[in-house]
């Protein structure tokens, strides 16, 4: 399974979307597709951020489980 995209990558994609949308000669359809993707991404990020709770583990525990 591919590694899930990190917050940072998702944020970067969002910024990219805004940059693309800023382009003057962008087709309307493309504009709509980008907007849709952007809104979805933003919701996903919001969900991930607000759903997160502090998780603390000790490396020893982690290594113990992995082995």
């Amino acid at each position, binding site marked *: 399974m591919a590694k899930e995209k*990190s*917050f*940072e990558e998702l*944020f970067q994609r*969002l*910024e990219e*979307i*805004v940059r693309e*949308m*800023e382009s003057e000669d*962008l087709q*309307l359809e493309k*504009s*709509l597709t*980008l*907007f849709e993707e*952007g*809104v979805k991404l*933003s919701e996903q*990020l*919001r969900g*991930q*951020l*607000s759903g*997160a*709770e*502090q*998780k*603390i*583990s*000790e*490396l*020893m525990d*982690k*290594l113990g489980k992995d082995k």
Partner: protein
Amino acid sequence: MIENNTAITVGELTRQIKEILEGSFSQLWVEGEISNYIHHSSGHMYFTLKDDEAEIRCAMFKGNNQYLRFKPENGMKVLLSGRISVYAPRGQYQLISTRLEPAGLGTLFLAFEALKKRLSAEGLFDDEFKKPLPKIPETIGLITSKTGAAVKDMINVLGRRAPYVKLILQPTLVQGDEAAADIVNAIQEMDTSCEPDLIIFGRGGGSLEDLWPFNEEKVARAIFDCQTPTISAVGHETDTTIADLVADLRAPTPSAAAELAAPSIDELMQSLQTVDEKMRALLERKLEYFWQKMDHIQDRFALQRPDAFINRMTDLNTHLISALKQSILMKLQSRFGQLETLLAELTVLNPKSILDRGYAIATADSGKIIHSPNELKTGELFRLQLAKGIISARKEKNTDTHQKKV
């Protein structure tokens, strides 16, 4: 006798002495014992540094002595770093101290300075080797004592500001002879086994000896070799260690490190909000632009061939209207014909037209039409409907001819 013209003034001589002394002793370390110590109300410190053979006047100004980690006392053996200064008006020279350490720690300081110089020459502190820190780390490795204040501070700050960050704690010794090796292992293990986005290593404040593991060469090299970006958080702001200089970022304290490590959830939510608003505005602008463009195209189309277009529409219109008229007229005519026939039929069937011809209809009290004399008892009342009115009647008797007697 020396001739007059070879003599120099006191001022000139002192100037020369000053040049020679200050030029030759501009940066030195001296070991000695403190005596005549005065901490002046101005904040400056004055004392004499002496050993068995000699003594020398010393001054340590406020700007330098405010960072002293100990209180100097008469009789105390110290290691002093500074320069010689000549005060011409009184013909005196003295040591201006920039650093002062208890003599027992002197060797540590010299070792620190030597290592710093060597690693600096090697380039370990150079900016070109500093790795950029992740903007939004999701996993942060903490390398510190499991029981110290540092770990509590960092967990508190990150938990409050950035609860989305997953923390992995690698407990280590942070002072004592075995600490350096332990820290090196922790860094290597953390770097290779669990790939956090960022490593923070550190400990709370302490004496120079307490912080010493973070001044050891192997720790410096482990930090330098670490693939994961690092933040150092050793002691307080005024304690600079070798580890601080090698790390990708130096935080003044563990709490500050936790704040520098990850943006707060509020900041992130705010920037998401901003992006949302921006996207909406951009889409709206794009839509407006397209509507305008469409209006423009329509106008242009109409402008290009107005005559042909209007003529064609007018022709079509006329044709359609006349065809419509025709079909409506024909339908109406045929409907009228049918209506007339129906009316004629209805007239014939109407019971009233029968009464007009002199017939009557007998109905019982109940309103029922009477078809036979037997439907009425003798003496019973009934009604006769004529063309122009109603007669109330009573039955006398039946007759063979089926005619009622009125």
